[in-house]
């Protein structure tokens, strides 16, 4: 059958649309906007009407085309969700490596790009401080039974940060300055301390496993006390929260 020119146009449009749908499906229907990211994540997290409350995009230093990451805090009912997408060659895809989706009701505390982000109803808050207490911690574990056998605690440090009011639902506390000196093992920035102060060691290691089984990073919850102040300086609330060592070490 020979198609007329109108028929050929219709056929070509149909083929193009099918190919576009196929490509989108192959790429996992990549979102184009933050709202679309929220819709996609909300569907998988069983959260209706997940609405963005804060977003920040960040270009990673990289040779060639730098991947751009977008960190999103979104809300559904009383629940806040934090997740990350990475843009590479024009397509956004969910980025789990340094931040699997995190959920919390009311107060979600998450370190990202050098700041601690805290969610909640902060309409009456005009200032806040975050006090982070870190302590050298080595957990000893029996290699065979996986039972914890001992905890060694060492040097302790307390960091206090003032907040930036991002909006009436998000506060941020900047804990880093991007200098190369901060990456040195002796640096005492919070990120570096999180990297080097928390360790998991093993006892009862079988002789054939002694090679390559050294001390490992320990995922540990670090206490973070946040004090919220009202307009006239009175204390509105004190929140006793935690931040994970993993999130602090991989906050990008």
């Amino acid at each position, binding site marked *: 059958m020979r198609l007329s*020119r109108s028929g050929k146009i219709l056929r070509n449009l149909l083929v193009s649309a099918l190919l576009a749908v196929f490509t989108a499906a192959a790429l*996992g229907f990549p979102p184009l906007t933050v709202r679309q990211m929220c819709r996609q994540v909300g569907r998988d997290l069983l959260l209706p009407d997940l609405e963005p409350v804060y977003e920040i995009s960040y270009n990673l230093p990289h040779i060639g085309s730098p991947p751009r990451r977008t960190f999103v805090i979104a809300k559904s009912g009383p629940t806040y969700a934090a997740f990350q997408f990475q843009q590479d060659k024009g397509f956004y895809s969910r980025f789990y490596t340094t931040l699997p989706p995190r959920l919390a009701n009311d107060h979600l505390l998450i370190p990202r790009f050098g700041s601690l982000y805290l969610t909640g109803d902060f309409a009456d808050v005009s200032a806040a401080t975050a006090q982070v207490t870190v302590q050298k911690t080595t957990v000893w574990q029996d290699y065979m039974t996986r039972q914890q056998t001992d905890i060694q605690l060492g040097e302790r440090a307390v960091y206090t940060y003032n907040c930036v009011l991002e909006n009436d639902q998000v506060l941020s506390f900047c804990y880093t300055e991007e200098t190369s000196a901060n990456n040195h093992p002796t640096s005492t920035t919070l990120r570096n301390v999180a990297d080097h102060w928390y360790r998991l060691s093993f006892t009862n290691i079988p002789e054939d496993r002694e090679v390559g089984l050294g001390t490992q990073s320990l995922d540990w919850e670090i206490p973070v006390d946040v004090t919220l102040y009202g307009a006239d300086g009175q204390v509105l609330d004190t929140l006793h929260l935690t931040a994970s060592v993993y999130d602090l070490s991989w906050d990008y």
Partner: protein
Amino acid sequence: MADNFSHWCNQVTDLVRFAPDHKAIAQELQAHYEDHKQALLDLGYDEETAAQRSLEAMGDAQEVGAALNRVHSYWLGLLWQASRVLVVLALALVLVGLWKSRDRVEDPLLRTQSQLAWEAPPETAVHTRAYNADVFWDLLTLDETPEGWTATARLWVQMDTPLGFGPGDAVRQMELRDDQGPLPRLDRFSDTANGFSHVSPTADSSWTNFSYTLSLTLDHKPAWVEVAYPYGAAPFALRDTWKEGTP
């Protein structure tokens, strides 16, 4: 005489605005002209007369050109060209998409396989309706060991639509507790006492039907185990007790 036809043909095609069609129009006119001329030659006309008569029979160049311009619409022609470019671009997009998703090229096959192999939850499973999914929870086995108790349980999630990656992220945020207290959350792997040795996604990559098997390690015999998702506008908790016949 051939020059006369070429001149006539050029006059006709010059009147057709959609230039990409000029070549095809010229070829068609040439075919008509040659057929007519051959017929006259077969009737015994000499070459020059046959060519002249054939050219006269083709008609007035202005009229033929105007008629062909109406048939070969300029805008329809442009649209047709644009649609061809669109197909080429879409094909290029497919190649880019396949290249970028090359690591997941088996994904649709695995999803379909899991979807087809999925076993529906038994009637004994407890059920609740989440925002966009049906969730089922069933305690399967309970065995006494020298160290304590091991138990297995299974979670089924049936999503309403096949769009998205599935409920894996939600499942990993679910909380477990039994009658003795809280157990580790499903994203905090713990194979110590009162933890779980593994969460086995029996169907974590599927279209709408997903299931996960949990192996619990406990230092006590639990009366019940609850899985809870305390998030969003439709939080839920599913509690199942051990069936009759378990130790």
